[in-house]
């Protein structure tokens, strides 16, 4: 029988969880207003959308592929949505579904090109990144789309929850993370995803449809990026082509901070959610203690490298941890 401490040590979310706890404690002690409603709104709204993007990126990374196009998709999908239902007067729900369908289409292309031609997804999705960047530029040419009267769909995706400091993306984040946690750990599909990223040879030999698993995960990653982008738009009431800048890298960072392996086969959904909160807390916390805003990315960069070194040293990537 496993002892309690042993079971606890086997929880992959433990390390990032402790990291988050440490960061929160640090900023609570260093600032007077870390628990103010304004800070809570700032942290949770930044974290929620990154977390949703990171969840999609995580399941794709676990199956052994990357998606660098999620940041551009994060702007592309809401831009399409807004243009359809504002400029073209199409029903808001139909245009939302159409926009999300387009997001899925981006994922389908990523998946097909990667699996059919056998090229690294790093390249496929980098190409898609530029394609979408160009399309975003073409669609709104540097302008800002603004909604003065949010629609029902926008309310559902981004409204404030009662009088709390929290907004709808936070609820959606929990719902989505729960669904994906269930998929990854409780469904046959999750087992196949883990096996595909772990070692493709044996997985294939045991009858796992590895190509199909990867393709589906490309679509899930793109869909969640687009959906999170629509939430951001619904929350801010505005979208620019710069929305989601760096999100592809932040999502991968959140996943890695949360214990997802860069080589596939390992990772958890809740770890990535914690990773996203780690990023958001540090971003807002640094502002609160008066560090110049641009220092945030520098700090994250250093943190990311340290965490990966620690993981490699601890054998979490190497695979010799019992």
């Amino acid at each position, binding site marked *: 029988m496993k002892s309690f401490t042993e079971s606890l040590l086997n929880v992959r979310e433990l390390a990032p969880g402790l990291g988050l706890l440490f960061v929160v404690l640090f900023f609570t002690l260093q600032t007077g207003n870390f628990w103010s409603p304004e800070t809570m709104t700032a942290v949770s709204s930044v974290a929620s959308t990154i977390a949703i993007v990171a969840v999609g990126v995580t399941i794709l990374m676990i199956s052994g592929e990357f998606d660098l196009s999620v940041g551009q998709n994060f702007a592309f999908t809401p831009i399409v949505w807004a243009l359809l239902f504002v400029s073209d007067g199409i029903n808001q729900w139909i245009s939302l579904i159409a926009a999300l369908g387009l997001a899925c289409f981006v994922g389908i292309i990523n998946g097909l090109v990667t699996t059919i031609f056998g090229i690294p997804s790093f390249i496929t999705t980098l190409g898609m990144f530029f394609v979408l960047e160009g399309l975003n530029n073409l669609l709104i040419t540097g302008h800002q789309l603004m909604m003065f009267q949010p629609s029902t769909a926008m309310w559902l995706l981004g409204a404030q929850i009662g009088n709390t400091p929290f907004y709808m993306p936070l609820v959606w984040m929990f719902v989505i993370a729960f669904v994906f946690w269930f998929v990854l750990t409780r*469904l046959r599909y999750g*087992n196949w995803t*883990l096996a595909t990223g772990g*070692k493709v040879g*044996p*997985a294939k*030999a045991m*009858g*796992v449809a590895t190509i199909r698993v990867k393709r589906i995960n490309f679509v899930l990653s793109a869909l969640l990026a687009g959906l999170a982008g629509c939430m951001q738009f619904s929350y801010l009431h505005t979208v620019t082509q710069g929305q989601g800048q760096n999100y592809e890298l932040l999502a991968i960072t959140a996943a890695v901070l949360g214990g997802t392996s860069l080589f596939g086969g390992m990772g958890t959904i809740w770890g990535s959610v914690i990773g996203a909160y780690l990023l958001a807390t540090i971003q807002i916390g640094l502002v609160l203690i008066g560090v110049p805003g641009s220092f945030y990315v520098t700090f994250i960069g250093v943190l990311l490298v340290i965490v990966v070194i620690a993981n490699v040293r601890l054998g979490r990537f190497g695979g010799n*941890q019992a």
Partner: protein
Amino acid sequence: MSHGPQNRNSHPTDAAIPVAEKRNEVDRSREPLFELRAISHSYGRNKAIFDVNLLVWPGEVVALVGDNGAGKSTLLKIFAGYLEPTSGSLRFMGEEVRFGTPARARALGIEAVYQDLAIVDQLSLWRNFFLGKEIARKIGPLQVLERRRMRREAETAIAKLGLTRIRSAEQPVWALSGGERQSVAITRAIYFGAKLLLLDEPTAALSVRETRNVLASIHQARDHGLGVLYIDHNMNHVLPVADRIVLLEHGRIVRTIDRGEVGVEELQELIARRAQNAES
């Protein structure tokens, strides 16, 4: 119990072998499990296998030995469905079969276990054990894993095999040695009702203790009535488990040796001498 079919179907040089007193319990009066009839195979213009006849009975361990390039791996690949022979026919459980793909061979109960293709390191033991054949409840379009049941069944199956180091099926397989992984893969094949087990150098690069584990698993498979065909270079590993040793040379079966007919040194000398003769 007749020794006839084997001689009749084997290469003519076989006839020279005196029929030894049999100590094994392989019932060769029954229908053979697998049969190669006049199999030849060429890679392009290079012929690798020449008119090979080979039978494997249920509950029999057959070892393929021979020098590098003798055609052992090619034969194994034909058994596993990875290669379609250029000519000749395959019979599985009395029926003529054509595999086309490894998947079709697997569907019939032919399970190939390769050292590096047996196990996904990152998955826990039970997830590996049931990979591709998960026990799942269907809820709408969802296949919800029956985790507790799979964990229990994997633990029971592995406990029967005597891998005592494995405490829980929740354990990731990183902790397992190369031999244990193969034993898990062999146990999995037995559990899922495989009829013929194919092993390509299962003891290569293993320690003595690990080798013993793998050989025990092969015994286990035989005792469950599976036919086992395996390639091994170490005659010390071949003799204790093989019911029959098939010596290949340049794509031909040159000798078939029954269990207990020769000792280790004799066997090694035999292979070396034949290799020497072939060179000169």
